[in-house]
């Protein structure tokens, strides 16, 4: 297992390097000009100097290696310094956003909490809804509960989040006025009232994302339970007189959760990507919104860094899913 983990970790490095190169070259091939917004009255030589100041004067491979150095060396050093009060990173250039002229990672650090709270919450809620539904509809296969559950999860799976989000805003935000339709990020939780305000504004985005996730996870849960319910060990457990509750909730559930856990781990990064749209619907200024504004503004370092962070998430969670699968299921041996 340890061998496998180390091998996969080592393999992740070239994968990530390749992905960063792909993103970098894609950005490089773009015809957009980060200085496109500079007024025409600025003389060309000044413009040239501005270009150099942004680091755009050099060949692409130099800039790529420079960015790699900044991402993998300067930034970790900087955060290390922040935590331990040392000064390793003094005088080193961090990744600077073209748009705000501030370090990219500072902006990201401001945005991460919003995304994490909404996305994380929705994923937890979604899984909590999905697992009981999956268990019940597999246990009572073809009952009305199963039929309704499968149908609802099919709908949840098919309705795009931007549509469910907008419909919820129309119903609960506009008609019923229960929840605010725009997420207010400046809200600070100080007392009970502001906490309730925070909860109220989170309800809709979390519900939308949670429904979508629940639909996917419950389908997997149902299939996995069905696979296990027909196995011989279930008959053995029943034959030796165990209660139905013990059989289902202990024996079957534990075994069926194994593939579901990996699916949950694999789905997490895509949820971050999908949250991009939900954030746009509810005007949550999280990571997704940051990426979209950066794309519009031709802010190359920001786009590169945020996209690469998504890629790291994907590679990391794929690895976690594989390792979890091996740890949870002793029959799986990678070595």
């Amino acid at each position: 297992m340890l061998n496998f983990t180390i091998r996969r970790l080592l393999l992740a490095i070239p994968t990530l390097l390749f992905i960063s190169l792909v993103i970098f070259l894609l950005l490089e091939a773009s015809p957009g000009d980060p200085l496109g917004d500079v007024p025409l009255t600025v003389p060309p030589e000044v413009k040239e100097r501005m270009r150099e100041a942004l680091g755009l004067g050099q060949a692409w491979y130099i800039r790529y290696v420079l960015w790699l150095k900044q991402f993998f060396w300067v930034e970790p050093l900087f955060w290390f310094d922040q935590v331990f009060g040392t000064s390793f990173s003094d005088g080193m250039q961090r990744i600077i956003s073209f748009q705000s002229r501030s370090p990219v990672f500072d902006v990201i650090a401001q945005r991460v909490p919003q995304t994490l709270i909404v996305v994380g919450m929705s994923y937890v809620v979604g899984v909590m809804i999905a697992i009981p539904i999956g268990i019940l509809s597999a246990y009572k296969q073809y009952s009305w509960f199963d039929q309704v559950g499968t149908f609802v999860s099919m709908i949840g799976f098919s309705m795009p989040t931007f549509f469910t989000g907008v419909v919820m805003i129309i119903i609960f935000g506009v008609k019923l006025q229960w929840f605010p339709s725009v997420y207010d990020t400046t809200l600070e939780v100080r007392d009970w009232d502001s906490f309730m305000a925070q909860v109220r504004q989170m309800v809709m985005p979390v519900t939308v994302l949670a429904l979508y996730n629940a639909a996917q996870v419950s389908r997997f849960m149902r299939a996995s339970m069905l696979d296990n319910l027909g196995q011989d060990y279930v008959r053995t457990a029943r034959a030796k007189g165990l209660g139905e509750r013990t059989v289902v909730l202990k024996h079957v559930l534990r075994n069926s959760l194994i593939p579901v856990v990996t699916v949950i781990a694999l789905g997490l990064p895509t949820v971050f990507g999908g949250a991009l749209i939900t954030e746009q619907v509810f005007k949550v200024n999280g990571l997704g919104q940051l990426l979209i504004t950066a794309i519009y503004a031709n802010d190359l370092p920001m786009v590169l860094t945020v996209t690469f962070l998504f890629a790291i998430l994907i590679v990391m969670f794929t690895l976690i899913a594989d390792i979890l699968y091996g740890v949870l299921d002793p029959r799986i041996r990678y070595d």
Partner: protein
Amino acid sequence: MTETDRQARLDTRELVDETASAAPVTSDLPPDDPVHAGDQTRSQWRDVWRQFRSHKGAMVALVLFAGVLLFVSIGPLLWTIDPTYVDIRARNSGFVAAHPLGTDQLGRDMLARLMAGGRVSIAVGLTAMIIAVTLGSFIGVMAGYFRRLDAPLMRMTELFLALPLLPLLLLMVTLFREPLSQNFGPAMGIFILIVSAIGATSWMQSARIVRGDVLGLKEREFILAARSIGTPPRRMILRHILPNVMSPIMVAATLGIATAIITESALSFLGLGFPPDFPTWGRLLYDAVDQMVLYPSRVILPGVFISLTVLCVNYIGDGLRDAMDPRIRGR
């Protein structure tokens, strides 16, 4: 004669045929065309269709999907208002006889726009799916059939799976819309861009499925037999491998339409899809969001169409998967 009756009779006749042919002395030679030995045929696709019809959800979905297809294809012939015709005096009208689904803020007829939008959305879905599935099956067959190509192609698939797809799609669409619009005209350029971007980022699943199936097929006797008479690889793949991996490809293709439609409308929703005077369902939804408080129907209608189409396609995919799985067929 009901279907079950027919099947039962077919079964009996097959049984009779089998027993008869196993009789020790038969003066007749075996029939020239063994597939049509009885007077009625029994092909794989007929069985699949029979099983598919027993999946109620899939049948309802198939009818609904056909309805949506008719709506977007025949509809514009019957409802001849130009979807881009601006009638500013009739703007924001409700559901009236002249405009059954109302008009938008520029007085363009919503019904005509929904038809035109559906045309584009479904065309994008179908084309992107064809690209993705063709690419995926090609890579899958290559990786499965030629052992030397297996490792590199699968590494590549894994690399693509690790790419953050939605951000990359956004990037590709923003960065390349200008040059392509200039070369092919605004609508066609964006169409090519979106279709190829979606196709290039969603072939991986089908490649993996096809590769797995091809690996299994390669161990079968008929492949060995075909190889032993010296069939060249090209004919081997086209004649023996591809027809046998058609069923997973078809399921992947059906589900691919759904993903492609959703992705296109998501891009449109983020404002990165087709130009404003070129309606698609996602674009209609996006345009209506600003005024959703006053005119919620304009948001809901295109959204319902997207969801309905995707739901139908997903159900059809489910039904197909069940129908093509020989383990549960005939139950």
